[in-house]
C-alpha cells in the first residue's frame, strides 16, 4: 500500500512536471524543446490516469499493476525520443537529422529484440515481462547514449548553457534509475532505504528542467571543458 510519503512525493512530482510545461511556455521554449515537453505532458497525463485507476481498483489490483508497468514502458520510450531530440539539437549544424532518426529507431529495435531474447523463456505473462525488461534496458541504453552525447558536447565545444544542463540532468536521471534497477536485480528484496529514495529520483528531472527553462536564458553560454570531471 502507498503511505502518505509516497502520495506527497507523487503529487510533488506531478506538480513539478506541470511546472516544466508552464516554465517552457513562459520562456518560449515549448516548441524548441518539443519532445522534452511532450514527455513531461505525457508524464502528467499518466500520473492522473494512474491515480484514477488506483482510486477505482486499488493498489493490489491487476488493472493498476498492468497500467503502471505498461505506461512506464511507454514513458521510457518517450524519454528515449526526448534524448534523441537533444542529439538533433547538438548536431543541428551537421544536418544529421536523418542519421539520428535512423540510429534512434535502430537502437530501439535492437533493445526490444534483446529484451525479448531475455524474457522468451517465461511461459506466463510474456508481454508483461517483456515490457518490464524493455523499460529497464532502455534506461541503461539511455544512460550510455547520454554519456556519448556529453562526450560530443565536450568534443564539439557546445556552449549553450540550457542545452548542456538539460543533457546533464538527463544523465543524472538515467544513471539514478539504471543503478536503482541494477540494485533491485542484485538484491531482490530492496531495503526500506532504497524504497524511500526511489520516488524521490522521479522528482529530479522535472526539478532540473524547471530550473533550466526558468533561470537560464536561451542565449546563456558556458565553456563546457570547465565542467568535465577531468579538466581538458
Amino acid at each position, binding site marked *: 500500500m502507498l503511505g502518505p510519503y509516497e502520495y506527497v512525493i507523487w503529487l510533488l512530482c506531478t506538480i513539478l512536471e506541470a511546472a516544466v510545461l508552464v516554465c517552457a511556455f513562459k520562456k518560449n521554449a515549448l516548441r524548441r524543446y518539443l519532445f522534452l515537453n511532450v514527455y513531461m505532458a505525457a508524464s502528467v497525463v499518466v500520473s492522473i490516469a494512474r491515480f484514477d485507476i488506483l482510486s477505482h481498483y486499488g493498489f493490489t489490483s491487476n488493472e493498476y499493476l498492468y497500467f503502471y508497468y505498461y505506461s512506464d514502458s511507454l514513458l521510457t520510450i518517450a524519454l528515449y525520443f526526448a534524448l534523441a531530440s537533444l542529439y538533433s539539437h547538438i548536431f543541428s549544424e551537421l544536418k544529421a537529422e536523418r542519421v539520428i532518426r535512423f540510429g534512434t529507431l535502430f537502437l530501439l529495435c535492437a533493445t526490444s529484440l534483446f529484451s525479448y531474447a531475455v524474457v522468451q523463456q517465461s511461459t506466463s505473462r510474456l508481454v508483461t515481462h517483456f515490457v518490464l525488461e524493455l523499460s529497464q534496458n532502455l534506461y541503461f541504453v539511455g544512460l550510455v547514449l547520454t554519456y556519448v552525447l*556529453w562526450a560530443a558536447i565536450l568534443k564539439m565545444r557546445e556552449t549553450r548553457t540550457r542545452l548542456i*544542463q538539460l543533457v546533464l540532468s538527463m*544523465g543524472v536521471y538515467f544513471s539514478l534509475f539504471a543503478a536503482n534497477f541494477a540494485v533491485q536485480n542484485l538484491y531482490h528484496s530492496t531495503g526500506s532505504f532504497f524504497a524511500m529514495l526511489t520516488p524521490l529520483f522521479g522528482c529530479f528531472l522535472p526539478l532540473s528542467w524547471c*530550473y533550466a527553462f526558468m533561470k537560464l536564458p536561451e542565449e546563456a553560454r558556458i565553456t563546457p571543458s570547465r*565542467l568535465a570531471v577531468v579538466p581538458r
Partner: protein
Amino acid sequence: MMAAFILVCSVVLLLQFFVSYCRSLIAASAKQMLSPEVQDVTGISRAASGEDFARVIQLLRLCPDSPADRNSIQAIGAYFRLLNFLRSTLARMVPSMHAWTESERGHCAYFAAVALERRIAFSRGMLAQQMES
C-alpha cells in the same frame, strides 16, 4: 554478473554527470561580482575557500527562504558533502585531487555567497512591496 556491471557503470556515470551538473550550476555564479556589503558580511573578497561554506550557509538560513534558489543550494550542498568525502579519503593519497577538491569547495562557497546576495535582494524587494501596500 550483468546487473553488477550495470550497477558499477551507472554509479561511475552518475558521479560524472552529478559533478558536471553541479559545476554548470556554479559556473553561472562564478562570473558574478559580490557587492561590498556581502563581501563584508561573508569575509569573501575575491576567491572563496571551502572553509567559508558553512558560515555562508548559516547566513543564508538567516534570510527569508527564496523558492527560486532553494533546490540549487541543496544540490550544491550535496556536491560540497561529496567533495568533503573525497577530500578525507581519496585526496589524502592523490595530491592533485586534494588541490582540485579545495578549489571546488571554494567555488561552492562562492556560489553560496552569490545566493546570499540574491536572497538579500529578494528580502529587500519583499520589504519594499510591503511598505508600498
